[in-house]
Each structure stands twice: as structure tokens, then as C-alpha cells.
């Protein structure tokens, strides 16, 4: 079995998938909602996990899986009724199976008896089935080779039933197997052959007598006929070592030869070849003859097929069902990185080309333009390979909701939308935690208990809406509930109590709502089992910002709350606009940019105590001076001499960023600033430009915040964590 150890990883991976399938199916299973196809899928999932587990010797896993499988078998054959109790037991059983798998994977031992209650429950359900519990799996007993070195002479008489060929059994292979066990003399008895007129080509009329001198045990010999001994005659007799072995009588041989008149008659031809076999393995030429002339065998066709067959290569798995191919994730990551570096190199080349004297090198320029185009397309294709729908994350939520619902005693229904929204795998992986906490928050703090809901005229069951969509180049995920909304007085009080806010300060509703994101905040009086466990929304906010994302909340008292999480579509590459401020260069995500323009003096307006404002496209837009925000010397301070880049913020507002110049547009590879340094305000990440120098990628929402601090230092402590949201 050592060879097969290499498949352990495959087994664990696949079992993980099976568990997910089973869980999804079990969560949908209910007394009134029994989909037999799904039940079968669940059965097969458990069955496969059990089967593979046996191959690697995970006996505890196999034993438990067997109990689980038994019940699933009963459900699918409708001998076990689907009740709520049954579904709960099955869900727990699936969990235990997952734990056993994890133990098997990690090589640890599970706690003694931890699965017992569930096993008892499973057996109880199994008892209710009409049939008795299935027999426990018999361990596969390999044929025992009794340590015998005694050579023995055994006579084997084999008279196959007439239609043996109909089940694909073929005496040739069995006889050959006998010859592998020792020295064999094979006689064919053709006495049963009818006349040609009565001969049915697909029936067997022959029987054989084999005299075998062998070291092998009787069990081994019996094994050769294991599939046919039920309905064919197999007589194995052991003789003493010196017993005379019957030899083929010449007369029989001649008869057989004579009988083989018509070619293409499979049995007859077989006779000829078999009789020719004397004392030993058949000679290859005779076997070839045998195989070539037997139309019932696929051998001849397989020769032809061999010429054009496509071998399943090692590594890639060919088309199985759908048009998909399984590829190592590492390979894709490497590919994405290489394409990323290619983007940088292409930018470098473009940069140098810019310095060439104009008018010449026309073809070179055109070629490079094409190259740039291809690089863009290549990048998009490669990124889309790694793009995954968020459903892989969303699918975990029903389970969470179900657990929270029972723990809190609240009725909750989860409605999801936009599961197919795709996002790069680098982002998907980071969605689980924030989503989990947002939903926990909604159910734990937002939704009221059924009685309370009824008292205010709401339906007893609370609703949590989970949705995902692309919006202005990002992915926006919302978790909305129809609960009681944020308890503002309580939140404010807690914030003051924890010294996060000065007492007496006047805060807007939105500012109060956002206090929950301030580090060190927690509204629970007692640490509730759920939300209090470890993380608060402030940690969520920090983790989300580390990814270049934002999280905010909108709340209407009595009606509900809405968490909005926005993340970049990929953490890898970006289409950006390169701008300069002083000697520094920055990159702005193209998706945020509305336009860039040079304002006239008449467009600019200054307001007392506030920063400049500009009139653009019919509305007033606040100006943000980057040189001021970033402390950059030698920059253009007069907006009319520089450029204003109009950007759109995530809440739909507009900002005007004052810069020196717009240098151009290019794709950039997003490099983390944080992995070796730290997060900076207003900075999303960094990139490497064509000349090899680093440029910071700006975060528009961060810039917005920074400019607000600059405006009103009095509210700095609150604004530290708050997002200024427009009124709902």
C-alpha cells in the first residue's frame, strides 16, 4: 500500500469537496423538502470518503463513515423517514466526519468517544428502517498464502456454464492465470461440441482438465475461478506428489483440430490454440493467433485504437464531464506573477521609447503599441483564470446563519444575491472573516427576538440580505438586516465610557454609528458567546483596510442596519493614471477618475475655515491639495497652474485632487507596502514604474479622510475611524 500514499493529498482534497457537497445538501434537507438526487449525492459523498479512507487505513474514520452511510442509504431508499431530528443528527455526523478527516490529515488522535453520541443517534435512526441494519463491512481479506513450499499436483476440472462469455468471463485468462501458478498441462475436452449446424457461436461447449504442478495453495487456485465458481463447474483435486498426471490423448487433439474448420468461429479456434498448449505457458505466436481471431474479444480493435488513442497524461486531468481542466494553484500564481512582471517590463520599454526622437522608429512605436495592447489582454485573461465567484464564500453563510439562529433563539432567513460576482482569488480568501463578522453582528445585535419583532409589527422571522456586485471597479458586498438598527445612545455611552470620545461633544448620527469601528469598542455588556468571541468590528475594519478595502455602516433605528464592504477586484494588477506632485509620482486607480482639467481662477472658491472648492460640471467639488497632505516641497500650489483630477469616491461623492501633472496611463502591478513596512493613510499600495522607481498607489477614500482631518482637527478623534457618509 506504500505506493498509494502519494494519493493521500488528493484524497483529503477531494474529501473536503465531498464534505462541502454533503453539508450543502443536508442544510437544504427538511421533512417537506426531500430531493432524492441530493440525498443520493450526500450518500455518495459519504460513501466515497469511506472508500478512500479504507485504502489509507483510517479505521476510525471508516467505521464512523459506515454508520453515517448506513443511515444515508436508508434515507435514499426511503426506508428511513426524514425528520428534523434526523437532519440535525446528519449535520452533526457530517461535522464529525470533517473532524475525523482533519485528524487523519494531521496525524492526531481524536478524543476518545467524542463521536459516540452521534453514533448512538445514527444507529437509532437506522433501527427505524424496515430492513435490519446493513452488515458491517468485512475487511478485505487478501488471499492468504499459506506458507507452503510443498510442491503439489492438483487437477483442476473446469466446465464453464454455456453462457459464461455473456458476463465477459473468459476461460483463456483463467487458464493462463493457472499457468502462472506453476507448470500446467491443459487438456481440452471437446466432447460437448455440437455439429456445426447447431453451434451457437457465443456459447461455450468446452471443458478443460488442467494438471498443475505448483507451490501455490488451494486457495490461490480457487481464487482463479472466484467469479465463476458459483455457476460453473470447478473441481480442484489434489493428488499426491508422485501421482501420475493424465496427458492429453492424441485422439482428442486430432478431433479438435478437425473440428476447427470455419475460421471466425471463436470457440473452435480457441480449441486449436489451447490444445497446442503443452506443459508450460502458451507460446506467444499462438496466443496472438488466438487473440487476433477472436471477434468477441476487443483485442483486435484495441490494436487499431492504440494508434489513435490519447493517453491521459500524468498531472492534467482530461475532460471529465464539463470542459474543465484541473491545474495546480501554484502554477497559476506563478503565471499571474510573471504576467505582472511582464507588465512592468513593458512599461519600462514604453518609457524609454518615449525618449526617442519623434518621427523616426514608426514601426517600432507601432509594434510596441501592439505589444502593450496584447499585454493588457493577456493580463485580463490571466486574471480571469484566477477569478472566482464569491459563491464559494457565500455558501458557508447558510450554515453560520443556522447556527446563530439556534444559539440566539431568533428566527432568521438569509437571502443572497450576486453569488456569481467574480473576484480574484486573492480577494475571495479574505472575504470570509469580514463577512462572518458582519452577519454575526446583524444577527446578534441587529435582529430582535421573534416576540419583540411581533410586538412592533414586524414578521417573526428576521431577514438578512447578503449581496455582492461590481461597482466602479470594485466589489461591493452588503449585509443588511431588518432589525432594530444601531442603538445610538448606547453606542455613544460606551464610547465615552471607554475614553474613545470626549463627553459633551456633538456627533452626527453617522459619526455615532461608526464608533463601532473604533479600536477598543464593544457594545455587549457581557461578552456574548457569539460576537464577543475574539473579534470586534474594529478588527474587521483594520483587516479590511489592509486589503485596500473599506467598510462602513448605515443604520435606521427600528428599521435595520446595512454594512457595506468594498474591496478591490484584485490585489494584483491595476489600471492607473500616473501623476506627479513635486518630484514625487503617484498612481491613481483609473476606475476612480472622472476627468482631469485645469481650472480657471473663476472656478475656484474659498470658504471660510474650509478648503478650496471648485465648480466643475455644475457642482461644487472640494479640492484636496496633495502636496499639503503629503508634505511635498517644490510642488505647484496654485490649482490654476497645475491640474485637478476629479475623482469619485465610493459613496458617490466627488473630490478634486490638485496635482502638478498627469504623466500618463498605464497598467501597474500592485505591490504591497505593508508586507515589509506598514499601512499609510491615503495609500493603498505601491508599484514599480517603468524606470524602476517606486510610486505609491493612492487610496481615494483615504485621501478624503485625510483631508477632513486637515479641515477640522476638533473632530479628529472621531474622524479617525469614521467615514463621512452622506445622509441616507
Amino acid at each position, binding site marked *: 500500500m506504500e505506493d498509494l500514499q502519494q494519493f493521500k493529498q488528493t484524497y483529503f482534497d477531494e474529501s473536503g469537496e465531498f464534505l462541502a457537497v454533503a453539508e450543502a445538501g443536508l442544510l437544504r434537507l427538511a421533512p417537506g423538502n426531500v430531493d432524492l438526487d441530493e440525498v443520493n449525492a450526500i450518500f455518495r459523498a459519504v460513501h466515497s470518503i469511506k472508500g478512500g479512507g479504507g485504502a489509507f487505513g483510517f479505521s476510525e474514520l471508516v467505521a464512523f463513515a459506515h454508520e453515517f452511510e448506513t443511515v444515508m442509504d436508508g434515507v435514499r431508499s426511503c426506508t428511513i423517514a426524514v425528520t428534523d431530528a434526523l437532519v440535525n443528527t446528519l449535520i452533526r455526523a457530517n461535522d464529525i466526519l470533517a473532524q475525523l478527516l482533519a485528524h487523519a490529515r494531521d496525524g492526531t488522535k481524536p478524543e476518545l468517544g467524542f463521536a459516540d453520541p452521534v453514533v448512538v443517534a445514527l444507529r437509532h435512526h437506522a433501527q427505524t428502517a424496515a430492513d435490519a441494519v446493513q452488515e458491517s463491512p468485512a475487511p478485505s481479506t487478501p488471499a492468504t498464502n499459506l506458507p507452503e513450499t510443498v510442491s503439489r499436483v492438483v487437477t483442476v476440472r473446469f466446465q464453464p456454464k454455456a453462457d459464461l462469455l455473456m458476463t465477459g468471463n473468459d476461460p483463456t485468462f483463467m487458464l493462463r492465470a493457472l499457468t502462472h501458478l506453476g507448470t500446467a498441462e491443459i487438456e481440452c475436452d471437446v466432447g460437448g461440441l455440437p455439429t456445426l449446424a447447431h453451434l451457437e457461436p457465443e456459447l461455450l461447449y468446452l471443458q478443460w482438465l488442467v494438471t498443475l504442478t505448483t507451490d501455490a495453495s488451494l486457495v490461490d487456485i480457487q481464487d482463479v475461478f472466484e467469479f465463476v465458481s458459483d455457476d460453473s463447474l470447478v473441481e480442484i483435486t489434489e493428488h499426491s506428489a508422485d501421482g501420475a498426471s493424465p496427458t492429453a490423448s492424441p485422439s482428442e487433439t486430432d478431433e479438435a483440430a478437425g473440428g476447427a474448420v470455419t475460421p471466425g468461429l471463436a470457440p473452435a479456434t480457441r480449441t486449436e490454440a489451447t490444445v497446442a498448449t503443452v506443459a508450460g505457458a502458451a507460446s506467444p505466436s499462438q496466443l496472438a493467433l488466438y487473440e487476433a481471431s477472436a471477434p468477441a474479444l476487443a483485442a483486435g480493435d484495441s490494436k487499431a485504437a492504440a494508434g489513435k488513442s490519447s493517453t491521459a497524461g500524468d498531472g492534467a486531468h482530461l475532460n471529465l464531464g464539463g470542459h474543465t481542466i484541473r491545474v495546480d494553484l501554484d502554477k497559476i500564481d506563478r503565471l499571474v506573477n510573471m504576467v505582472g*512582471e511582464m507588465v512592468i517590463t513593458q512599461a519600462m520599454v514604453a518609457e524609454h521609447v518615449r525618449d526617442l526622437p519623434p518621427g523616426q522608429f514608426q514601426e517600432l512605436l507601432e509594434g510596441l503599441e501592439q505589444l502593450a495592447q496584447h499585454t493588457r489582454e493577456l493580463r485580463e485573461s490571466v486574471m480571469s483564470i484566477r477569478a472566482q465567484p464569491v459563491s464559494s464564500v457565500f455558501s458557508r453563510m447558510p450554515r453560520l446563519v443556522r447556527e446563530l439562529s439556534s444559539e440566539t433563539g431568533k428566527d432568521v432567513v438569509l437571502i443572497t444575491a450576486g453569488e456569481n460576482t467574480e473576484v480574484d482569488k486573492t480577494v475571495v480568501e479574505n472575504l470570509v472573516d469580514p463577512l462572518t463578522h458582519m452577519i454575526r453582528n446583524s444577527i446578534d445585535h441587529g435582529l430582535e427576538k421573534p416576540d419583540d419583532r411581533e410586538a412592533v409589527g414586524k414578521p417573526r422571522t428576521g431577514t438578512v440580505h447578503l449581496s455582492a456586485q461590481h461597482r466602479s471597479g470594485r466589489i461591493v458586498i452588503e449585509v443588511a438586516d431588518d432589525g432594530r438598527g444601531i442603538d445610538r445612545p448606547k453606542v455613544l455611552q460606551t464610547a465615552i465610557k471607554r475614553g474613545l470620545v470626549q463627553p459633551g461633544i456633538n456627533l452626527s448620527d453617522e459619526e455615532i454609528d461608526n464608533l463601532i469601528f473604533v*479600536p*477598543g469598542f464593544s457594545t455587549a455588556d457581557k461578552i456574548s458567546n457569539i460576537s464577543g468571541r475574539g473579534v470586534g468590528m474594529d478588527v474587521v475594519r483594520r483587516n479590511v483596510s489592509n486589503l485596500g478595502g473599506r467598510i462602513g455602516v448605515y443604520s435606521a433605528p427600528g428599521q435595520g442596519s446595512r454594512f457595506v464592504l468594498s474591496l478591490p477586484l484584485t490585489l494584483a494588477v491595476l489600471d492607473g493614471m500616473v501623476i506627479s506632485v513635486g518630484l*514625487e*509620482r503617484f498612481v491613481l486607480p483609473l476606475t476612480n477618475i472622472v476627468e482631469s482639467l485645469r481650472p480657471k481662477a473663476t472656478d475656484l472658491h474659498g470658504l471660510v475655515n474650509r478648503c478650496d472648492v471648485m465648480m466643475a460640471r455644475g457642482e461644487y467639488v472640494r479640492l484636496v491639495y496633495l502636496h499639503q*497632505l*503629503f*508634505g*511635498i516641497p517644490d510642488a505647484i500650489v496654485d490649482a490654476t497652474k497645475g491640474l485637478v483630477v476629479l475623482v469619485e469616491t465610493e459613496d458617490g461623492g466627488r473630490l478634486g485632487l490638485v496635482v502638478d501633472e498627469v504623466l500618463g496611463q498605464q497598467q501597474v502591478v500592485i*505591490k*504591497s*507596502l505593508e*508586507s*515589509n*513596512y*506598514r499601512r*499609510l*493613510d*491615503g*495609500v493603498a499600495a*505601491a508599484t*514599480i514604474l517603468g524606470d*524602476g*522607481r*517606486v*510610486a*505609491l498607489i493612492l487610496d481615494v477614500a483615504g485621501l478624503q479622510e485625510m483631508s477632513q482631518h486637515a479641515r477640522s482637527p476638533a473632530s479628529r*478623534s472621531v474622524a*479617525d475611524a469614521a467615514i463621512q457618509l452622506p445622509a441616507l
Partner: protein
Amino acid sequence: MSKPSSLATIGSVRGDVVAAANTNEEQYVTFTVGNEEYGVNILSVREIRGWTPESRLPNLPDYVRGVINLRGIIIPIFDLRARFGGGTTEVTKRHVVVVVQVGERTRGILVDAISDILAISRDQIKSPPTMETGMVDSQYLSGLFTAENRMVTLLDVARLFAVETGDDEHSNQRALVN
């Protein structure tokens, strides 16, 4: 064994590499900033390169010079002189950046020149006095070593820039207070 072979020495390396004769010894790369000589454990040194212009980072203390592109990854460059209050270094191409790795983080330290690679055994290292020694706050020191009449201040690289990168408890608390 340490990795002298991976050091792309551009600055001057005086003296021979002293082989670590026994396991009690550890190798240190030493360098100078002004008149002071410092050392860091060779195991944390990834490479040594000549200075290249950084891209500035906004709103940071003067000892954070900026970031550079190190073969595709972005690392911060800290000015050791400025870190210890000696003012910003006036860089030239002859200055040296010691690239160190601490845990998952890689960063560069700007120094004047590389001095030596010394094998120092534990018992040769004196613990730093608790009061400030010269320019250096003793919490960043892992010890002092005397070599041929000169004193080498051994730096604790992990601690040196932990505050800056938010790796220590202090920065977390500071965030709360604000």
C-alpha cells in the same frame, strides 16, 4: 553555517572572514555610521547593496527615507544615523544599504560603510548599560563588543524598527489612546 556567500559586498570589507570555530560563536556584520561602529547578526542580513535613490513616503519621521524596489518587492530604507538622532545622512553613491530580514519583513538600513565580519562568542558580549550610550537608546541594543580597541555596538534588528512598523505593543496602545 552563516551565509557569507550570499553577501554582495559592494562596500569595503576589511579583514578576513573569521570562521566560526565553535558553535558558541556567531558571526556579525559590522558597519560604521560616523565614528560609531555597529554590528548585526549575519543571519539576519540578506544582502548588502550600494545606495540607490528612494521614493519618498509622506508624513513620516526623517529616519524613514522612503522605499526602494528590491527585485520586485518594496522595502523601506531607514537612515540609521537619523534613527539615533544624528540627523539625516547626506547620501552619496558610496553609501551602503544593509538589507536585513526580521521574520517576514525585509528592510534596508542606510549606513556609511561596511566594516568587517566578526565571529563573536556569547561570553565576549557585554550587556549594554541601562542608561543611554552615546546616541543609541539601549533598548535597541543586544550588547557591546570590544574588538582591537574599538567598541562595536551590537544592534537588535528586530527591536530597532518594530515601533516604526507597528510590530510592537506600544504602537497598538498608541492607536487606542488617539
